[in-house]
């Protein structure tokens, strides 16, 4: 469904992302992992059209969308959420979701109905009339997801929707994401919460210092020496192995 090839971006002399390549098959949940500053979010901003890549290409359902504006890309059925949640603070939860729903439902009545429906499906039924500014972090993360879903996009790029949540909240949102996937959506998600990645993602890519260093099932990745080194520092894989043998 999504094919990213050799995507690169430099900020001044810093190569934030170089030659990143990844594929997201339709109906799957793909993880994008990596330590802080690895270039994951930069990758997302380029895929979603918020910044132009220096080189490389992004294809959505075979159509080249490299460098298109975010609203075009959203119209084509791919949407991103933000790591730092961006609610429309002055609006109610329902109105927030309706902004997304307006994309394909031009009438207020329809958009509001879609918003209520999506809100209820994501377990926000009782919060619909509350101002978005009154939500907890978990609520705001869920609102990001609801708003994105209301646009009717089929491919969702989730940027750390679980960061800052407590375990029960994570379990809830994992269930929700799985349910949405079963309804015919595809996910590419940046995630630090390994519990979530292990239970959700079929495959995952690992980015380190702007370079894709590994690709495979989450179970394989946690044993991959390159991945362990990326997270725990040079020589960590070897030390761990020695500990195991000792």
């Amino acid at each position, binding site marked *: 469904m999504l094919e990213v090839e050799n995507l690169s971006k430099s900020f001044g002399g810093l190569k934030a992302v170089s030659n990143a390549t990844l594929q997201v098959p339709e109906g799957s949940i793909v993880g994008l992992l990596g330590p802080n500053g690895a270039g994951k979010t930069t990758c997302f901003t380029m895929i979603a059209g918020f910044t132009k890549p220096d080189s490389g290409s992004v294809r959505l359902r075979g159509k080249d969308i490299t460098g298109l504006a975010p*609203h075009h890309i959203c119209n084509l059925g791919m*949407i991103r959420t933000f790591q730092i949640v961006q609610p*429309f603070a*002055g609006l109610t939860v329902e109105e927030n979701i309706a902004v*997304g729903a307006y994309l394909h439902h031009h009438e207020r*009545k329809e*958009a509001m109905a879609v918003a209520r429906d999506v809100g209820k499906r994501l377990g926000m039924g009782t919060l619909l009339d509350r101002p978005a500014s*009154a939500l907890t972090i978990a609520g705001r993360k869920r609102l990001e997801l609801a708003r994105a879903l209301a646009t009717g996009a089929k491919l969702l790029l989730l940027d750390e929707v679980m960061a800052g949540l407590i375990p029960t909240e994570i379990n809830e949102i994992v269930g929700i994401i799985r349910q949405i996937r079963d309804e015919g959506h595809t996910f590419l998600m940046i995630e630090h919460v390994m519990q979530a990645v292990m239970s959700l993602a079929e495959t995952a890519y690992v980015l380190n210092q702007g370079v894709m260093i590994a690709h495979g099932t989450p179970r394989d990745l946690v044993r991959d020496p390159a991945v362990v080194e990326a997270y725990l520092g040079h020589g960590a894989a070897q030390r761990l192995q020695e500990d195991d043998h000792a």
Partner: protein
Amino acid sequence: MMKLNSTGQVVLILVAVAYLLGVYFISSPVWMGFTINALIVAVLALSWNVTGGFGGLSSFGHAVLYGTGAYTSAILQVTYGVNAWVALVAGIAMAAAVGGFIGALAFRYGVKGSYFALVTLAFAEVFRICAASFDFAGGGSGLQLKLAPGISNIQFADRTVLYTFLLAIVVLVMLLTAWIKYSRFGAYLVAVRENEDAARALGIDTYRIKVLAMAVSGAFGGLAGVLYLQLWLFIDSSIAYGSSVSIEALIGPIIGGAGTVWGPVLGTLGLHLIGEGAKTLLSNAPGLNFVLYAVVLICALRFMPNGLVGLAGRIGPFAKKESKDA
């Protein structure tokens, strides 16, 4: 679906409606004349409300729209003998075009916040100087319409008819504002105000929305300018493009409640009442009303950030609960 208004808002609106209708019964030319002026400013305030209220695009140069409407109509009528109604439509269209042009230019280069305010102020000043310099715009002596009372010339000999005409226009512009507020366009505009990045991610062409808002605001502002011309039959560069016009445009909505349908009208009426009262009390010291406006504005910003409408919204059984961390 309209939300229920709180008791405070209902009372506020009823007082305003009672006042506007009361003018018919108190046969005082002073009150009527003063309210007629306030209604024209209310249209201008509703114009600012589209961009500044819904869109969060605070313009400090709405005189550029007001003046363009007035000048376009005046030049067409005085120089080319065009019918007043045709000139009215042309004035509105020209002001909308100028609004759209300024928006297109400013937003193309990502101008935001106070920089946008400065850009609009600069445009208003450029237009003011041009209007004062070019002969086809009357130069320093301004433009004078011929006195020719009659509906076909939009000149009303009877003040009551004039008042009714202006009241109808204010109601019409308020209805259009309500339509914007509850339309997709309005929702997108508010989304742009609240968080532009999130709006872009949700498929909104924010550039297009902002330019469109400037054009709609231009149409309303141009209408206000034409109304002023039709009332006084005279404009010059500082009346049409002066910065006091820009101040009047934004102060009413801010005090009344920006981004609401009633706020700009309530704020403008309230301010003009205060200004008029002060003038009467302090024997017409010129410019004193602006000093008072400033005091009221500072108090409004400190004590009622959502304006009169917001303040009244916290009174009564349907009062909106304030969120703790807003």
